[in-house]
């Protein structure tokens, strides 16, 4: 049976999404964790993970100019739409010197290589990061590390998802818990693609509201059931109410509220699960939200009654 994939997203970063995913993983019976926040993956910091496997990942090719073959005609520089080619002498040196490619800016389109009359440009696989497999106390976790200015985070997210699916099938685990990427661009689109259910973690602030509308619109395009939870609701109870109303108006399900407590940060510092840390009812809030989600997931895991 195909495992059920729950993706947790937030639009804006810093709403406590990763800490919640970690807490849910503790509450779920066995599941596969997938950290798709490949830009700044943190889930492994919570779960004391133990690295099992590490595979390099190339998101795009890069161009490189062979100075021995290059005749300085300037065609490549003129054709590169991404300002990735520095012209002769472009690095500030006054000495005669060939054009060079800045690997951080090169988009790997290959246009320069195609049109170079001397065939002086080669394309090579860039090192854009690693896909990692780790063991945690809640089950296996697939995560990734994107290299500096690495690309293509959307593709890397796709790879993480694929490996998580294979693992789940192999080990007969029926739930994949995905820590999604922030924003609304390519990595989050890749996080949502193929997921069965989305949970948006938001916070009661004008920016949280603003981002919720944008991310809900995106999730809506995928046509999957979408739930909303408000973190730190008591920072602004009035906005928390507005978010709940807005969510319901937009046809989203409301999964509940979680109070403001720096127990998340304390748990991080002590290297513990937030559920094991003394707090003022925070753990109960999290259990409550998880029970709503869990009930929904269970419904999906059961074959539809005929």
């Amino acid at each position, binding site marked *: 049976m195909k495992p059920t994939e729950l993706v947790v997203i937030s*639009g*804006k*970063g*810093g*709403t406590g999404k*990763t800490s919640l995913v970690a807490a849910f993983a503790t509450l779920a019976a066995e599941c596969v964790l997938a950290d798709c926040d490949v*830009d*700044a993956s*943190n889930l492994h*910091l919570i779960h004391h993970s133990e690295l099992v496997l590490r595979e390099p990942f190339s998101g*795009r*090719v890069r161009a490189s100019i062979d100075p021995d073959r290059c005749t300085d005609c300037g065609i490549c520089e003129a*054709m590169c*739409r*991404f300002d990735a080619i520095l012209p002769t002498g472009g690095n500030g040196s006054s000495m005669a010197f060939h054009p060079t490619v800045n690997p*951080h*800016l090169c*988009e*790997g*389109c*290959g*246009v320069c290589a*195609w*049109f170079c009359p001397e065939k002086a440009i080669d394309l090579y696989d860039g090192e854009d990061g690693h896909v990692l497999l780790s063991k945690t106390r809640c089950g296996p976790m697939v995560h990734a590390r*994107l290299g*500096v*200015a*690495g*690309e293509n*985070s*959307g593709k890397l997210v796709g790879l993480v998802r694929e490996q998580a699916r294979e693992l789940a099938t192999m080990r007969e685990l029926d739930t994949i818990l995905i820590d999604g990427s*922030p*924003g*609304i*661009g*390519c*990595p989050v*689109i890749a996080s949502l693609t193929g997921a069965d259910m989305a949970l948006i973690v938001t*916070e*009661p*602030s*004008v*920016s*949280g509201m*603003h*981002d919720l509308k*944008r991310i809900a*619109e*995106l999730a809506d*395009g995928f046509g999957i059931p979408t739930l909303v939870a408000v973190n*730190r609701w008591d*920072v*602004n109870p009035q*906005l928390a109410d507005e978010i709940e109303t807005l969510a319901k108006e937009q046809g989203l399900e409301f999964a509940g509220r979680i109070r*403001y407590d*720096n127990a998340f*940060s304390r748990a*991080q*510092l002590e290297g513990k699960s937030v559920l094991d840390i003394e707090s003022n009812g925070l753990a109960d809030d999290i259990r409550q939200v998880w029970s709503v989600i869990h009930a929904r997931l269970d419904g999906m895991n059961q074959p539809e009654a005929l």
Partner: protein
Amino acid sequence: MKLAIASGKGGAGKTMVATNLAWTAAQQGVKTAFLDCDVEEPNAALFLKPDIENVIPVHVPKPVINQDVCTHCGLCSDICRYNALAVLSDKVLLFNELCHSCGGCVHVCPEHAIHEEPRLVGHIDAGHAGALKVCTGVLKVGEAIAPPVVKAVKQQAGDETLTILDSPPGTACPAVETVRDADFVLFVAEATPFGRHDLALAIDLAQALKRPFAVMLNRADLDHGETRRWCEENGFRVLAEIDEDRRIAEKCSSGELVVDALPDYREVFTKLLEDVVAAAEITTNERVQG
């Protein structure tokens, strides 16, 4: 001077710092522009509340194929490294969302059957909040590729003495596009293990792009000085620290500027502005001379 305010991860307080710094500068009479380059989630305008005078559309070139002239030779799909073109026996299909607008297909087509037309991918809200110029880049929902919108926002910089760029979080292409030609980068990080982990990645990026930078710690008292010590040990300059304060969370949640709502923080931002400008000037001079 172009000053980018960046962070390894969203939610560290980057927009809070960027908006308060820009507001402080403008109130001192410094001619300042604020460019919100966090085009996936642009939030700064919620705090600065500018009057919008202009909505500028952002387009990217999109190839358009003249099916009447096309001979289905397949060259355009050969050159396209993003699988955005499929040549069928009777027509050529373009998948917009995969196209990077590299122009390869246009140049390669032997029949000159491909030309480019603008395709809307976002817009810029341009205006002023008092004397402060504010431009916000907004990526259209459903569009995957943010850098063209970031580039367009950056072009809004004029003859201001100070330009503050609110960078997208992280280290991927939208952040690279924002930070690549900034004169100085100020990283905002939370003093937690997450914060430190993400700060290290963000600093790697600044170093790879050869940008001078410094750090400002938010919620600095959380880890009892561990992140500050880590910065010192690694030679990263910490310009300012703000301790955890629920009042800041509350004021930010309703869209208020900290320097307006909590006067006790004015001094912190005035001093941070002085220090960051001084640090940027020193590194700029060093580069000119070195």
